[in-house]
């Protein structure tokens, strides 16, 4: 029998050298695939680390420990004239009621310093919680009511396990006597961990336990609505004109180059432009979602125009020729036949542009949206801030509990971004047509 391996060699290859070369090419292919996989694994690892660190840091902001305490809502303190008028009751001195409760609960704390330390274990906004409980049920006036008030950020950290009890007292944010009181409350079953509704209901606050993301969410939404209303029609119209109607000459070339360049301009430049044009020239209000939306619209316009032109280009010429062939005018062809087919691509581009706008802070700095704003904005001219700015402000705050809030806010922002990108993918899947 002859050696089969020699046979196969002579069958497929002309020379030893060719075989070596082939092996080399196979090896380099395997190497390339390996590098590619390695790159993807690295990217995934980094992503997982990033997401898990954000999650681990942020998930504690979604719950808050509350102290369930009994408040004596004395008639003479809440509504001395017994009017039953909600307006009178709303203005009552709930701070005193909270102080009275503490005095009653811990009667042996008498030294002024200790009293202050005691007061510090529950939130400084406790009176507001008592008030809203009373406002929700006016029949509580004159009775002893059990109301849950949030613990202060430091006390909350004790139950979240962020305070190391073994540390010497002067290195700890929560002192020994405070820990004693908290343990006492906890043994009595008066400490309860609840879902942090406040976080999703209110605007910013300097007290971590009272700070919420809602103001920033509304601000972001208002800003994005303005951005969308301006950039989408303008961008699509520009794309249609440039792609379907504009003559090809030096002017349109120049415009095209400029649009492509604008897409790469750093976003802070748009903020400076906004400051000069919208605030200083037109005198629009500072910190308003209207101005933020205008600036972000300028920023997203190039993205939308480029994406829209690409999707118009992807519509085959036969559609246009067919339209023109049956006697439709140029405008009719574009609007009845080409545009509907290009729409999914345009919308995808728009959503990606919006997602980009949602994450911007730099241009908003110049127009005063990087600010501490407590009230939830009510319209496009009322002062507002946006999600990424809120994250920035919290990340920069000295209070330790804001670290968790930062993580929580990042999670909220990320989930909005994921939802927007999912919508973009779904639109593409559902309406995209291939030729």
């Amino acid at each position, binding site marked *: 029998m002859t050696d089969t391996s020699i046979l196969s060699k002579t069958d497929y290859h002309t020379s030893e050298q060719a075989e070596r070369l082939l092996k080399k090419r196979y090896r380099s292919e395997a190497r390339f695939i390996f590098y590619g996989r390695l790159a993807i694994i690295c990217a995934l690892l980094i992503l997982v680390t990033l997401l898990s660190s954000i999650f681990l840091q942020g998930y504690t902001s979604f719950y808050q420990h509350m102290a369930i305490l009994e408040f004596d809502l004395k008639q003479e303190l809440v509504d001395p004239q017994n009017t039953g008028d909600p307006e009178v009751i709303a203005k009552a001195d709930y701070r005193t009621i909270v102080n009275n409760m503490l005095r009653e609960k811990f009667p042996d704390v008498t030294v002024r310093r200790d009293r*202050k330390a005691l007061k*510090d274990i529950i939130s*400084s*906004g406790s009176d*507001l919680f008592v008030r809203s409980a009373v406002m929700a049920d006016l029949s509580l006036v004159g009775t002893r009511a059990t109301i849950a008030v949030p613990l202060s950020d430091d006390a909350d950290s004790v139950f979240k396990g962020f305070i*190391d009890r073994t*540390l010497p007292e*002067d*290195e*700890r*944010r929560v002192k020994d006597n405070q820990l004693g009181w908290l343990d006492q409350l906890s043994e009595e079953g008066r400490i309860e961990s609840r879902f942090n509704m406040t976080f999703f209901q209110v605007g910013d*606050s*300097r*007290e971590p336990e009272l700070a919420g993301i809602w103001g920033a969410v509304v601000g972001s939404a208002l800003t994005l609505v303005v951005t969308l209303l301006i950039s989408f029609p303008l961008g699509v119209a520009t794309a249609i004109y440039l792609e379907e109607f504009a003559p090809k000459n030096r002017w349109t070339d120049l415009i095209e180059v400029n649009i492509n360049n604008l897409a790469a301009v750093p976003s802070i430049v748009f903020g400076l432009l906004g400051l000069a044009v919208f*605030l200083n020239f*037109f*005198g*629009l*209000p*500072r*910190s308003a979602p*209207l101005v933020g939306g205008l600036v972000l619209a300028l920023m997203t316009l190039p993205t939308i125009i480029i994406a829209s032109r690409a999707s118009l280009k992807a519509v085959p010429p036969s559609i246009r020729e067919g339209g023109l062939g049956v006697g439709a005018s140029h405008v009719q062809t574009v609007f009845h036949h080409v545009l509907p087919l290009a729409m999914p691509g345009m919308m995808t581009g728009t959503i990606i542009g919006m997602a980009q706008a949602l994450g911007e802070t730099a241009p908003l700095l110049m127009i*005063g949206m*990087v*600010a*501490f*704003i*407590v*009230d939830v904005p009510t319209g496009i*001219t009322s*002062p507002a801030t946006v999600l990424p700015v809120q994250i920035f*402000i919290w*990340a*920069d*705050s*000295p*209070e*330790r509990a804001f*670290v968790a809030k930062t993580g929580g806010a990042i999670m909220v922002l990320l989930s909005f971004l994921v939802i927007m990108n999912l919508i973009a993918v779904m639109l593409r899947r559902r309406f995209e047509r291939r030729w």
Partner: protein
Amino acid sequence: MRFKTVAIAALATLAASATVAQARDQIRIVGSSTVFPFSTTVAEQFGKTTSFKTPIVESTGSGGGMKLFCAGVGTAHPDITNASRRMKSSEFDKCHEAGVTDITEVKIGFDGIVMANAKDAPSFALTKRIIFLALAKDVPDPNGGENLVPNPYTKWSEIDPSLPNVEIEVLGPPPTSGTRDAFQEIALEGGAKTFDWIKAMKKADKAAYKKVARTVREDGPYIEAGENDNLIVQKLAENGDRLGIFGFSFLEENRDKVKGNPVDGVDPTFEAIAAGDYGVSRSLFFYVKNAHRGVIPGIEEFVAEFTKESTWGPDGYLVDKGLIPLPDAERSEGAQSANAFVNLPGV
């Protein structure tokens, strides 16, 4: 034709909203990021306890705040600016040129700048002179003589044998920060002045003196760590050989991770800064545009809230946020002149 109408309509809308902007019933505050935590706390308290709207506080930096504040009188311009240093004479002049001639200065307290490191790392007994030698760009020749050489020191022990034998590595704020300005002015220049011949330069050539005394080295040991002080704290906890520069309030919040090092023998404690014993501290201010009193509702009440004992006093709520209060006499005097809206005659 149709396009023209649309354009005109758009412009008209903009103009209409511009007139909306003219009416403002909310105080607007701009300025220093160091004063920001205090200003916002007072603003929130003010919003909660009065019938006025919560003021809007922007964090623009001291210089940026002054620029906005001094741009003019009118509701388009802010009412109050915060500063982590006094108003400069150039800024004062700009204000006056723009018609902002009636300004009240309110000094609110102190902020200590600490040189911190990890809690379990060895303590550095620093002096301003050591800080200058470690971080200035050009330092006196270590071989003696009154000439400057590019900073040759790479280890702390080279400057003073009593210091640990570790690489000089200091994390600090970038040049845009007010903390950096203050650090250069107080710590570095303070150290430079301990050399008599450098001090003598001040009279001969002020610009050259300032350059020598206040320039931070750029060859590596000083690392610009960004404006985020929380990040610096984190990096200090990771590596015990590093020092970090940040405000006292961040030290207060992170006592379990980092500790402040003594400068000229004084530890950065609340008491030492309040008494003025700790050398690297600065005053914090805010400035009120008096022309806006009576136009924007609540300015008087806001200043009153800020200067109440229960706000800025030793037991006030700003102390919980890290403010170091003024001495009693200065505080009551300050409250008086603030609430009388005394005009700042010049700086």
